[in-house]
């Protein structure tokens, strides 16, 4: 049983995800997208990077590659799927999650630590936290501004599918703490099932103690129940 990390041409956080998961004792393997999902896949990471050079829109091409049909099928069967950064863009482009991640309000690439407020703690991805906890995880994206129609946002909020919002160090969600102009400060959200989540910040860059804060560990531990510990 292993977490398959799907590598596309242009993925560049696949090895980071592998290292971070293995640090947590979660078996993980990088899978080239053209090879399809291995039979032993019991969790899936769509990693960060610039798949297909971000041509057309970030994530648009990868979302329409054949392996995404396998990912959607696995997700529907309850296999946990986590889309990180470019993987979050792929997730929204593929319909795993609603909405779209598009050009930052600043029109710039932004690479900086941000604070996230945990909006619900009863999911695999947030079971390590309490609702309302503030965690520090870095972002690194040019197209991370969450966009969605007002009616669909209201539906997502009514379904309690917002997982993380950008906030300040005290947990306050206001304009200054929103790094990219995301609607409703959404940094991460759930798909139809709680086992499917996408987020723009990088938990795999906040997992190894050697490189800084480790607040992201809890998110990756979302795979533990499905994959087990080594």
């Amino acid at each position, binding site marked *: 049983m292993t977490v398959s990390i799907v590598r596309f041409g242009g993925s560049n956080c696949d090895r980071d995800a592998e290292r971070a998961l293995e640090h947590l004792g979660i078996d993980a393997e990088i899978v080239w997208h053209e090879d399809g999902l291995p039979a032993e896949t019991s969790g899936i990471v769509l990693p960060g990077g610039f798949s297909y050079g971000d041509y*057309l*829109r970030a994530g*648009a091409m990868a979302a*329409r590659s054949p392996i995404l049909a396998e990912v959607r099928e696995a997700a529907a069967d309850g296999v946990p799927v986590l889309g990180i950064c470019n993987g979050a863009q792929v997730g929204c*482009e593929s319909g795993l999650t609603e909405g779209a991640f*598009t*050009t930052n309000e600043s*029109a710039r690439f932004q690479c900086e630590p941000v604070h996230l407020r945990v909006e619900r703690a009863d999911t695999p991805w947030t079971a390590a936290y309490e609702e309302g906890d503030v965690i520090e995880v870095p972002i690194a994206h040019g197209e991370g501004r969450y*966009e969605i129609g007002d009616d669909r946002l209201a539906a997502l909020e009514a379904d309690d599918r917002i997982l993380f919002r950008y906030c300040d160090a005290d947990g306050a969600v206001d304009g200054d703490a929103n790094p990219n102009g995301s609607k409703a400060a959404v940094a991460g959200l759930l798909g139809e099932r709680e086992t499917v989540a996408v987020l723009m910040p990088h938990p795999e860059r906040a997992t190894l103690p050697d490189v800084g804060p480790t607040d992201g560990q809890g998110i990756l531990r979302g795979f533990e129940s499905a994959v087990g510990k080594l």
Partner: protein
Amino acid sequence: MTAYTATVTVRLKRGVLDPEAETTKQALERLGFELEALRSADRFEIDLEADSADGARERADEMAERLLANPTIHDYDVEVDER
């Protein structure tokens, strides 16, 4: 079969922020131009063969629906010309 060019124009829905267009507008203003607003759009010119202009339009529509546009943020239109 007739040769057509289907031109698909994809633009952000009204009300969706366009930071790139805003940056471009500011650059034009720095050059001394006066303008009220600027909107950007992507234009795809697709050469294809079809039985009729309607057939060509239908295929271009499907291309826009399935890949070229993202319905969450985009509107699009299609024009078809004989080539």
